[in-house]
């Protein structure tokens, strides 16, 4: 009853470059939601004018410190936005966002990048036992990994 007039809060999280461009192509799915976008490049704010937006340092597997800083900032954003749903198009940012989303009881969906046409990414594999759903954008990869396929951003 409480949520009857409230829009669903979506936290949309993507790493930089292609991950972010793929997220932008999903925007029609968030039409009726209260969305907060998170990506790496502060300049990407101009892609989602008028929406709530955070940028989070690019961590990668090579540098532990930036990875930890990235995780902490994503935890902070998750805690203050309190999303009902977390959606990510990868990579490491999406992994952490899905883990923290679960922690606060949000539904979590990880969509593996369309770049992974032969095998799921490391982030997708790691997150698959935690996220509610994982989608691959290639039918044969989805079959092999036992995740769902519902088309692609192409």
């Amino acid at each position, binding site marked *: 009853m409480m949520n009857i007039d409230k829009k669903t809060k979506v936290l949309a999280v993507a790493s930089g470059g292609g991950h972010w*461009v793929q997220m932008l192509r999903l925007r029609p799915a968030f039409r009726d939601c209260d969305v907060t976008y998170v990506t790496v490049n502060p*300049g990407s704010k101009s892609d989602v004018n008028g929406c709530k937006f955070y940028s989070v340092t690019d961590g990668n597997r090579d540098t532990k410190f930036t990875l930890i800083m990235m995780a902490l900032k994503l935890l902070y954003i998750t805690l203050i936005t309190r999303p009902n749903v977390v959606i990510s198009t990868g990579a490491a940012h999406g992994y952490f966002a899905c883990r923290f989303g679960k922690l606060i009881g949000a539904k979590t*969906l990880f969509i593996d990048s369309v770049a992974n*046409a032969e095998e799921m990414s490391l982030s997708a594999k790691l997150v698959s036992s935690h996220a*509610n759903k994982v*989608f691959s954008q290639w039918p044969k990869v989805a079959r092999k990994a036992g995740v769902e396929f519902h088309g692609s951003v192409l």
Partner: protein
Amino acid sequence: MIFATVGTQLPFDRLVETLDKLHKNQSINKCFAQIGPQGKRPESIDFSATLTPLQFAKHIADCKVIVSHAGMGTILTAMRYGKPIIIMPRLAKYGEHRNDHQLATVANLRDRAGIHVAQDETSLMEKLLHISSLKASRCASSCAEPKLISAISNFINKDEQELEYV
């Protein structure tokens, strides 16, 4: 006008050098390259290490053909603007990426309208020499396949109660 881009993270000198060579001997004319923070500086063509999203969008909008590594960001942007794009895969053996997933990308996108695959420098050179014959895709697209959009909408809207109390 050719716009070349290697993405935000890693350099891709094989691609930039090929363009630079052709520009130097006047086989191609106007060309601008975004070469990455650690990219080797070309001698002949105009370049910049990085671009803001707005500058990037302007270069894409203004160019005739895009030349790029096989990164999905640039490929999708080319599709959005309906521009022809030549993609060359980064190879792990040259230290151009952590792995060879760009080979998979080009193998799977090879048959799409507007996407032209150059497997290596020789093939890139050939494509650049016949640049006016490169076709763009028939229509620009700015969002994902409708069935993916509806699968995501379903995920957002369905079973919330049920999932909340698992």
